[in-house]
């Protein structure tokens, strides 16, 4: 068996160790004899339907994020990714990637006459996640622990954008420690079909192997059209790293 991972804007959207998620997917597949090919999808490159079995989209610097938002629409990649997720292709998007796959990101911009703080032009997302993000002056930094359908998940958040889930949106989990989507409603991230968006760096997948395996399993199931049971691995180190964070910060 083999899988192709589409690494969205791997050249621009790769801060805070998000590449660790790619390493984790690659290794955990490799240890089970599943070959992985990584295709970095940069500006202007195209994605064909059926080309990628799993998508990853990391965080980037503000400036990079503007370029990427523009390209996501213009190159048609945003649309293809959304269609692929609709048919079940799994996706993981962190921080900036998560924000750009919502409805929109609203920066501050110049002060407006009516005194509203958010007057800058919206960066439109592809609307994959039923959510939108507003710029804020609060920097939400620190270790984060959430309770989710994968059990506890641990990571490190570092964002000032506040994401609000729309009606009927399903959060990835509820915050036990940290800020999460917006620091108010205790939700963190969003899950839609097999796509997950969240603010958790860390890197997320190495310390949350259950989630990493879920993404791999879904990718294989969609690709090969059958139920897949992954060979269990010895995760003692990963789980200890996970426990340590829960114990120290959770």
């Amino acid at each position: 068996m083999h899988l192709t991972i589409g690494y969205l804007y791997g050249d621009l959207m790769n801060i805070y160790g998000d590449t660790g998620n790619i390493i984790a997917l690659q290794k955990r597949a490799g240890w089970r004899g599943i070959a992985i090919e990584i295709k970095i999808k940069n500006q202007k490159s195209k994605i064909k339907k059926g080309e990628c079995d799993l998508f990853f989209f990391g965080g980037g610097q503000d400036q990079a994020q503007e370029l990427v938002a523009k390209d996501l629409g213009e190159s048609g990649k945003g649309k293809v990714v959304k269609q692929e997720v609709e048919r079940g292709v799994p996706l993981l998007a962190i921080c900036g990637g998560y924000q750009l796959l919502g409805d929109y990101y609203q920066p501050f911009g110049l002060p407006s006459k009516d005194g509203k703080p958010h007057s800058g032009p919206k960066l439109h997302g592809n609307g994959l996640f039923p959510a939108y993000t507003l710029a804020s002056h609060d920097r939400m930094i620190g270790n984060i622990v959430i309770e989710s359908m994968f059990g506890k998940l641990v990571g490190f958040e570092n964002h000032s954008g506040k994401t609000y889930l729309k009606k009927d949106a399903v959060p990835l989990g509820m915050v036990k420690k940290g800020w999460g989507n917006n620091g108010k409603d205790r939700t963190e991230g969003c899950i839609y079909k097999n796509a997950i968006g969240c603010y958790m760096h860390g890197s997320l997948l190495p310390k949350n192997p259950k989630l990493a395996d879920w993404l791999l399993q879904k990718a294989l199931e969609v690709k090969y059209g059958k139920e897949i049971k992954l060979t269990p691995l010895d995760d003692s180190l990963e789980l200890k790293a996970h426990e340590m964070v829960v114990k120290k910060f959770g």
Partner: protein
Amino acid sequence: MRLILAIVLGKFIAYFTKLLKIGGGSAAPGLYALKICPSLVEQLSKHIPKNVVITGTNGKTTTAKMLAHFAESSGLKVIRNHTGSNLERGIASTLIANYQLLTTNYQLGIWELDEAAFNSVVPKLNPDVIVFLNIFRDQLDRYGEINTVLKNWQETLKKLPTETKIIINGDDANLLKLVAGFKGKVQKFGVKDFKIEGEDIVHKKEQRYLDFEAKNVKLDGLNSSNFYLQTTNYQLPTTLPLPGIYHIYDALAAFACASNLELPIHQFTNSLTHYKPAFGRVEKFDWGYIFLIKNPAGATQVFETIAPNIKSNDTLLLALNDNLADGTDVSWIWDAVFEKLLTPSLRAPAKQSQSRLPRRSAPRNDVIVSGSRAYDLAVRLKYAGFDPETITVESDLQNAFKQARGGLQGKLFILPTYTAMMELQSILTKTGVKKHYWEEK
């Protein structure tokens, strides 16, 4: 009046922290003194005839120490924040500690400044020379994005008098952009056929003008590197008693500064032969080495430098802390290329966890991971391809050190983050291996 009060208070705090052995007095005295007299640095530093500021992500301490060493061997009296306390409080503490001698004694101030502190402190120091070493990702939880750091530096540069001499690493494209708008003199240093790309120093042939250039570079393991130091007027054969390309950049920066300070630069090479590294920066002992690792670029450069020199009976001790000074976000270890540290004797056998075959009996290195985030580091090593069976986790650094020294057959390579390195210094002191770091010169 406030100034005198601040100095007295600072001295008082310094006296007690040393008496009670709670620290070296490199930060606290300045911190409290600045609360009483915010213009302390401005008022005291103007007594020093020449001031140099060194900033950048990596290499500040080494560059400062090399320059100080050379200036001192040329007969100058140097004042500097030599314990690496590179915020305003560190500079204030140094100035307070040397207050009586300030007006008469010192000829040169060498100040290393943290990327963020740079912007608030430079206008107060009004330096004659400023060196920008490089800009890499570092502790994004503290400094923010690279673009933000550069934007703030640019604002600070705009306000400087045009007589200020600016020296930059000419192999760093970000720094070239930074100085594009500066009206005064800018000089560049660099290594021939090398270039900084993203987080890496890469081999690359490119035509560009450098005022100070290292040519014909030959690396000699963990001992030294040899090269020609080329300026408009000189070509000096140089032996740098530090390993790795990244240290050549530090030496070039120190040399460029010295040249601007009109020191006898033809003696620079000679002075290097007596240079002793700053603590934790390639510190050598008869049983091994300490290499500070603190961000992806710096760590990766250390891995590249040491990997070819790790023998199969050597032991590795890596320590990762997540204190404020280390960066509370340990995500950076996933951007550091630990894969480059992976020598054949550290590699996991091909079919990892499913293997039922007897394990091969080839010699294996011991790897001990320590620090408050030891398990994060263990996971990183596993995913870099290290054999999990050779990895021991011992969160307590003192125990980890004892264990590493205990069964040592070859050399011990210690790679700590900043606060782990400080902790290690105190362990080394306690066990009688070395003196207090603040007693070091």
